[in-house]
């Protein structure tokens, strides 16, 4: 029975995150902790006073003013957070998830997520948060930070949930891809799905034999998957296969390279999350 941590923020992706959580929780057995994190308050919350003067005991007056402004905003954010969480909880319970907990916390999203991730099997997050909703093909700033800092697999929810029938494992032979295969072979949510496992690179016997071992491993877990090796540029090949194969879920290792390298040549992971319009399960 998987334990999930679902990060929601009341944006468009919230419902989708809930639905993906329902799927990943595998029905009544799983448990989901819905978490909403109230971030730092806006930097400059006071209406600008550019008078440049110091009044008598202006320090105390300013402190009072700022504190009461923060208080009002925090109350609003708190109330909104409760509503978001309650709605999400109702949605999950309606869908038959056995155990749903809600958590509303103050602080940094990443710190809070790390605090709560120790006993969960999977983190679910939307592609973009409420702050980035305008930029349709860009990714939320928190997404990469969560994926990079978490030790758990992360399921990145697409804009809307579609029933998952076929999944594709992008297998690069790395440790995180192995982790992905291992996870899937044991995850009940994947049972009964059609799967493919794909290596992008030269078609060598070595690549084939590694793939075969993975197929065996998945078979032992009760999954039948097709294996394939295709040469080409990883992100293009994978995107192609996703489109043509009617894939509903992409599974892959994430951010195998350092930030510096990604800064210069870009990251396959980021590119995949951005260009594929399906949910993606990432392993580090």
């Amino acid at each position, binding site marked *: 029975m998987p334990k999930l941590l679902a990060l929601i923020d009341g944006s468009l992706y919230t419902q989708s995150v809930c639905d993906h959580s329902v799927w990943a929780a595998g029905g009544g057995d799983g448990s989901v902790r819905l978490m909403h994190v109230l971030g730092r308050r806006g930097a400059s919350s006071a209406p600008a006073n550019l008078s440049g003067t110091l009044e008598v005991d202006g*320090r105390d007056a300013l402190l009072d003013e700022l504190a009461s402004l923060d208080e009002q905003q925090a109350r609003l954010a708190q109330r909104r957070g409760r509503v978001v969480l309650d709605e999400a909880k109702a949605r999950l319970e309606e869908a038959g998830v056995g155990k749903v907990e809600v958590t509303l916390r103050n602080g940094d999203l990443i710190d809070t997520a790390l605090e709560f991730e120790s006993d969960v099997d999977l983190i679910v997050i939307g592609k973009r948060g409420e702050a980035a909703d305008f930029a349709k093909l860009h990714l939320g700033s928190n997404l990469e*930070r969560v994926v990079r800092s978490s030790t758990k697999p992360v399921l990145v929810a697409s804009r809307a949930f579609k029933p998952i029938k076929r999944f594709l494992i992008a297998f690069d032979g790395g440790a995180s891809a192995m982790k992905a295969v291992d996870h899937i072979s044991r995850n009940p949510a994947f049972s009964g799905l059609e799967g493919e496992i794909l290596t992008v690179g030269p078609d060598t016997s070595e690549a084939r034999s590694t793939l075969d071992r993975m197929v065996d491993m998945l078979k032992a877990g009760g999954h039948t998957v097709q294996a394939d090796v295709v040469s080409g540029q990883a992100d293009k090949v994978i995107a192609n296969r996703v489109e043509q194969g009617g894939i509903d879920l992409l599974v892959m290792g994430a951010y195998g390279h350092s*930030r510096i390298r990604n800064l210069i040549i870009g990251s396959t992971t980021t590119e995949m999350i951005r260009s594929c319009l399906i949910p993606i399960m990432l392993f580090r």
Partner: protein
Amino acid sequence: MSSFSLLSSRTLSRSRAEWFGNIRGDLLAGLVVALALIPEAIAFSIIAGVDPKVGLYASFSIAVITAIVGGRPGMISAATAATAVLMVTLVRDHGLQYLLATTVLVGVIQIAAGAMRLGTVMRFVSKSVMTGFVNALAILIFLAQLPELTNVPPLTYVMVAGGLAIIYLLPRVTKAVPSPLICIIVLTAISMTMDLDVRTVNDMGQLPATLPIFLLPDIPLTLETLWIILPYATAIAAVGLLESLMTASIVDELTDTTSNKNRECVGQGVANCATGFIGGMAGCAMIGQSVINVKSGGRGRLSSFCAGVFLLIFCVGLGDWVKQIPMAALVAIMIMVSIGTFSWASIRDLKVHPRSSSIVMLATVAAVVATHNLAIGVLLGVLLSGIFFAGKIAQIFRLTSTLSEDGLARTYFVRGQLFFASADEFLAAFDFKEVLETVTIDVSQAHIWDISSVSALDTVVLKFRREGAKVVIIGLNEASETIVDKLAIHDKPGALERLMAH
């Protein structure tokens, strides 16, 4: 690798938020602060007895460098009154070059202080000492204006009063423009058009005409020089760190965020070091300007950075106009800063606060006003608060006793805190005149904190033995657990409860 990239990923995103989290607010606030910094930097240079350009260069470089390396985003550092008053005799007796060398040395001392993590020592500075500090600072700023207010033509008073009126009344009409700036513009315009015979900034010395350049202080590199500048540098470094850390906690409180105090110490040091080499005087964080910055919407590092850059642009670009500013306008602004820095609530609180707190606050103020050295005031305040605290804790002490039925043995029960401040009371509580065969002293309910209390106990034992009694001490081990410097509470379950139980 993963922990490294995690670390760098967080540091990166934090520093991005600290710099660019509030661009619009920081730019505006930086502008307001820069305009307010110019008169202050000029005024503080005059206090120190150097050309206005020394203070202006210093304000530019300190504001920009602390923005980059400081530990408290949104705090404004520049040339300050607190450090300027300490330089007066140095400049008078030895000249500007020694001041520049001192500034470099101040930076070195502050970097060392930061490296030794002295920022944490700030916890010994109580609230009362802080209040005393700001009050004393306000008084120093006001006193520094007196030369401009005595033996001057009556017209000066009219102009200062008019300036104050503009500063305080304009915000009631509009809060969109800095009223000190309007005060300067109006008074300058009046004095120029009416050709008034008042002192202007031009009479005070040279203004910056170019961007600052790197130069080595022109001093003999001898031990003798070091002995001249070291006392000044130590005092300035201490005062600078005190005001900076105090300002950092004020900004922490206002913005409900935290800051890195040790990084701030190092940042102040780096800023002063660099400032000495471009011909600026030592400075530190400014309480008033930091409050103005937060009030104007500044929160990030960008605000302090912009304040410094704008300041330099204004001074170099508008130098001819800055020269014409009448001193009366600056005096009015400094009076405003002085009034705004003073904690008027503390006067009201004198009646309600415990007398010991009030004494600490007043003593801090008195010591500063007498010596013009804020470090001495703070030192006295910290000492006094420590003494008062020890006096309070010494009251947590009781000695009771029971006499045996045959009247030959007495058992004394010691409860409470035994340390230097309660040792005398401890000694006096025993009745050595009573003739006893056995004296039992039960210290299992007491805490022996230091050597004074150990020797007091020894004295008691010795005295009873000299009177012919046999002395037994019970529970010494439990009682003396506290004598070690650091209580190892964490590795003994229930130790804190035992400590608090009696």
